[in-house]
């Protein structure tokens, strides 16, 4: 049956429903368990193998030499990161993990560096 206004009952029904919109800063979205968010790096576990920097597709992870260290260790620039999780996957000692944090917009670029 072709009649105009096929959605009439549907739209009037939605008038009394709670809107589907998530009012973001007031309502928090549900973050799933294996979300790929901000990178966390555990220096005590790291063996300085450099696999993470080798596999990083965007060059966000680089090996940097620090004065107190003998070997260079990875430094992550979240401004370049794709959050693919390849570094965490390839790490033989689980020294890198991706957390559920996702809000890091900033005016200060240095706050995006994870060491």
């Amino acid at each position, binding site marked *: *049956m*072709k*009649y*105009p*206004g*096929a*959605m009439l009952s*549907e*739209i009037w029904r939605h008038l009394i429903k709670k809107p*589907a919109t998530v009012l973001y800063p007031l309502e928090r979205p*549900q973050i*799933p368990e*294996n*979300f*790929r968010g901000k990178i966390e790096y555990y220096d005590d576990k790291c063996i300085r193998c450099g696999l993470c920097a080798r*596999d*990083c*597709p*965007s060059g966000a992870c680089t090996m940097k030499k620090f004065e107190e260290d003998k070997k260079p260790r990875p430094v992550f620039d979240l401004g370049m990161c*794709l*959050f*693919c*999780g*390849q570094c965490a*996957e390839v790490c033989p000692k689980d020294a890198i993990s*991706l957390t559920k944090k996702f809000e890091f917009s900033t005016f200060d670029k240095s706050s995006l560096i994870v060491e």
Partner: protein
Amino acid sequence: MAEITIPIGPQHPALKEPINITLKVEGEVIVEPILRIGYNHRGIEKAMEARSYIQNIYLAERVCGICSHVHSSTLVQGAEELLELEIPRRGLYIRTIFLELERIHSHLLWLGVAAHEVGFDTLFMYTWRDREIVMDLLELISGNRVNYAMNTVGGTRRDINDEQKKKLLKGMDALEERTKYYVKIATTEPTFLKRVEGVGILKKEVAKKLCAVGPTARGSGLRMDIRKDDPYAAYDEIPFEAITSDLCDVMGRTVVRVKELLEAYKIIKYAVNNLPAGEIRKKARRKIPENEILSYTEAPRGELLYYIKSNGTEKPERVKIRTPTLANIPSTIEMLKGGYIADIPIVFAAMDPCIACMDRVILVDKKNNERSMNWEALRRYGIKWYEVKR
């Protein structure tokens, strides 16, 4: 009536992506459309040559924002074939589930866009709201809404557990009910039908001649679906139908997409219920022996094609990507012919264009075009132009 030439694009508020359509019109009727592409060359193929296969998976995912998993699947499929690797069946099934989840979200997105193009914003809002169900499922399993990073050479990176299986099945049931409602709306609402029926006609023979792919070809009654013609991933084990429609117009393409949604729910339900036990991935060598391969899959928009040439190192020698949009451009020109100007948006949207993934080459004709200038000349020209204005 005299012919008038109307240029649309490459910068045009009605176009979401840069493309140039030059129309020769008689009154409101289009006589000859000329499409010019190549405004959005991103150099992805060249970038792929400089990265290893592992890195390229994530780069390939970013060729397109909508169909990201299918790009990485095509790439890893080629690499796996080059390595002569046997992929665990569980890995293939999870890959298939993701391919279909992606098809669902792409087709729902398309339905919304098509409704918006004809001014049916309520349907647009509803489909996009329901699309959130599948987006949440994708995020639940892969940890991200768009670029899932599920593929790796040798299988998939993440497993699906029992709780996620339950949620997947529940989500599919909810979506199936909604989709059936949209089928009803899209086939009974007269104002919507008026805008899609008999618009953008592409005859079967023409579609065949112009090598149309995907829903554009299937909407013209051409039965071509890579999932059936040359099954990849786990499609050879999963029962499903290749949907075609003989309507040959925008309505036909709508019907194909909406019915494909229903098929996709079936495929996912089957794959989840019959998920084989075992490993999800196999360890793969990083260096890929010298050879070349053509890998193709059925993306939501049609046949996606990767040509990979390896040279025995970690990095590919050459990767060529042909996205379905490019294959559908000649058919679109045919569809626009003889139509109304007001129908351009919906006809153009009916092939689900993705200009940014399509453009591979930029053509600069220095000999015949004296306006081409380098950066320094452009800078000087800009300064001069503004000085004159002042």
